[in-house]
């Protein structure tokens, strides 16, 4: 009896670990990856054309103040409250211009905002579907009425884009939604791209932006680093970058072409495919446990009997 159950247990343990091993091994195989949809909306930021006027930042706060409570941020040096000077993207700031300085001659502006990934990690990890990717436009949107504030999206995002309102009692996540409810709905263009005086921010469909970026690289190979950031990074993003400086110096991390969400979902799906493994595990364990219990039933019945007599 005992031996039998141990054999069962070992069999089961073997099967389970073999399954887990298989999924782990499966994950390391090369993946096909999803098709990139070039019809989705996005932006092309050309750092060489940016003059750092920050009109995009103020337009973003003006337009979206009702959707994300974008307040003005006081800097530590600003006792009179004369500046809006966010030091980074934050719970009050969706887009930000920074200036990278290598020396007096070599510098570059850089704009931060949501990359609107083709396969967004934040959407993949959100447990309650508060982060969503719109089918047609490809906009990665946030719904504060569903969000539970677990901040898994922040852990997952390789670009560190979603920001949390740490100082508020009723906080929310703040990130760019391409002016989905505001400027895009009214004027068909995001506020930052609309106000940019030099055309450094171009709004449009990903395919067009990509062709434009390739053309610029071709006509001015001396001006640019020969790479379109966002073309392949993390499975491709709808926000694309051109710059004269290496992108990692501008604070844009180096990311492999495979989307991180592809990797994690593959493992999660292998384990929970059709919920078969958990159900099988439960039934197998039930079988063993009930069988074991039966072996002890006689013994326990005696015990119960004597208890009652007491």
């Amino acid at each position: 009896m005992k031996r039998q159950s141990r054999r069962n247990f070992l069999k089961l343990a073997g099967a389970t670990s073999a399954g887990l091993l298989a999924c782990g091994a499966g994950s390391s195989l090369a993946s096909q990856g999803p098709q990139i949809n070039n019809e989705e909306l996005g932006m092309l930021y050309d750092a060489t054309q940016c003059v750092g006027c920050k009109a995009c930042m103020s337009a973003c706060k003006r337009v979206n103040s009702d959707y994300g409570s974008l307040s003005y941020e006081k800097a530590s040096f600003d006792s009179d409250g004369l500046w809006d000077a966010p030091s980074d993207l934050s719970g009050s700031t969706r887009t930000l211009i920074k200036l990278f300085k290598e020396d007096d001659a070599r510098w570059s502006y850089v704009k931060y905002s949501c990359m609107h990934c083709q396969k967004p990690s934040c959407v993949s990890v959100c447990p309650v579907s508060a982060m969503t990717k719109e089918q047609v436009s490809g906009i990665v949107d946030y719904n504060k009425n569903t969000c539970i504030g677990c901040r898994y999206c922040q852990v997952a995002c390789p670009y560190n884009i979603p920001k949390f309102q740490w100082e508020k009692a009723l906080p929310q996540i703040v990130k760019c939604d391409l002016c989905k409810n505001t400027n895009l709905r009214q004027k068909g263009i995001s506020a930052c791209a609309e106000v940019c005086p030099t055309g450094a921010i171009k709004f449009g469909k990903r395919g067009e932006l990509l062709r434009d970026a390739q053309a610029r690289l071709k006509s001015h190979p001396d001006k640019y680093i020969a790479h379109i950031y966002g073309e392949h990074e993390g499975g491709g993003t709808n926000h694309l970058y051109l710059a004269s400086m290496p992108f990692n110096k501008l604070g844009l991390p180096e990311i492999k072409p495979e989307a991180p969400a592809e990797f994690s979902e593959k493992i999660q799906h292998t384990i929970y495919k059709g919920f078969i493994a958990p159900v099988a595990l439960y039934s197998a364990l039930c079988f063993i446990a009930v069988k074991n219990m039966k072996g002890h039933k006689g013994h326990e019945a005696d015990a119960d009997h004597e208890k009652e007599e007491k």
Partner: protein
Amino acid sequence: MAQSEEFQKLEGKIFTKSFFILLTVVLIGFFFVGVRYVKGIGAVSNMSDGYPWGIWITYDVATGTAIACGGYAVAILVYIRNRMQYHPLIRSAILTSMFGYGLAGFSVMVDLGRPWNAYNFFIPSKWQANSAMFEVALCVMAYSTVLIIEFIPAILTAIEKSKWERMNLVRNWLHPRIAPDQKTMNDKLEMVRLGAAWLKPRLNKVLIFFIVLGITLPTMHQSSLGSLLLIASTKLHPLWHTGFLPLLFLLNCIFIGYAIAILESIISCYSFGRRYEIEELSGLAGLVPFVTVIWLCVVIGDLAYRGQVSAALNGDFYSSYFMAEFLLVAAGSLLLFFKKLRRSPRWLFISASLIVLGGCLYRFNVYLIGFNPGKGWRYFPSFAEVMITVGIVALEILGYKVFVALFPVLPNTSGHGPQQQKKTVVVENAKGIDLNQTVAQAQLKAAINNLN
């Protein structure tokens, strides 16, 4: 020989000195919880947009539930591997698990930014099966419920046997005008007793299916606790980021569970002045190295496969934490391979402590120490943040203390070892709880030190 009861209540006072010390710690913790709800998470914690998960998630949820896996590990042993001789250990293991998981759930509610939206977990249209967190959340909620159901027999037994002394005391203390009539009250209490007596055998019949559910659910969510960090491929150090995270976390919680069960038993035997259950413990300890060796092999094999062995040995910040975690577990397991050491309570205690420390350090490494969101981000927990965690741990010990006094949880000592006079047992009991407390606090301290 007359068959004695398997479990017994702990005789003695509830309101001891340690009770009030623990209560103070709990109240300090809850004061900061209050501050967190009024002024926001940023007011009490050092978490930032780069480190959105601090020690509340890392210790209370990821590590705390592993420490609370004693119930899971012992249940596997008793019901699946059919070792009924360990059955006396199970109720206290389940109680610890119940508090461990319940309070992990509580600290999640402190940690969540928008907890009032948590009902979305129960709305199918919001379900997001791709998310490991969704799986963890549902499983942990289900498992907590299962643990409560597994504990109900103890409560029913207590109701059945109760003489309602405390209830009568309260009644006599009340003003006669508001106090209920003695006879009516007794009738009502009798009905409760009969209800409990009616329910108990029926529950016992189906209990095994809940127990097995209580084995399936931790298997699922403990592996998913590892899956949570799979997505952070650019942030988690390559020493720890691997497709085997779910498997490693599952094995990790099993050996932590057994090691904790050994520690619990040794500490309580020591403090109750009871004979050590060397047969059971050395049997239990004989299982641990099998699990740890599989775990260590997967770790090494995976590092070799991904070509990260040099990163593990190069002696930098990450490598030293990796080596610490690895060597703690390896050293603890090595000791357990010697049959002679397995039969010595002292060496059992040492090796189990090493294994628990190493196993918990692994979880800290994955969730915090090996997690690097990029340049410019730093995290070290603030005082208030630590106090909330300490307060929750104190509440756990406090609850355990009260529960073992109210319900028959601990193994019946009269059947084992040399007969003790009741009074000494009572005195020693208080000591036992204190020891439990110091162990838990020492673990926490070690964990926090590891962050440095």
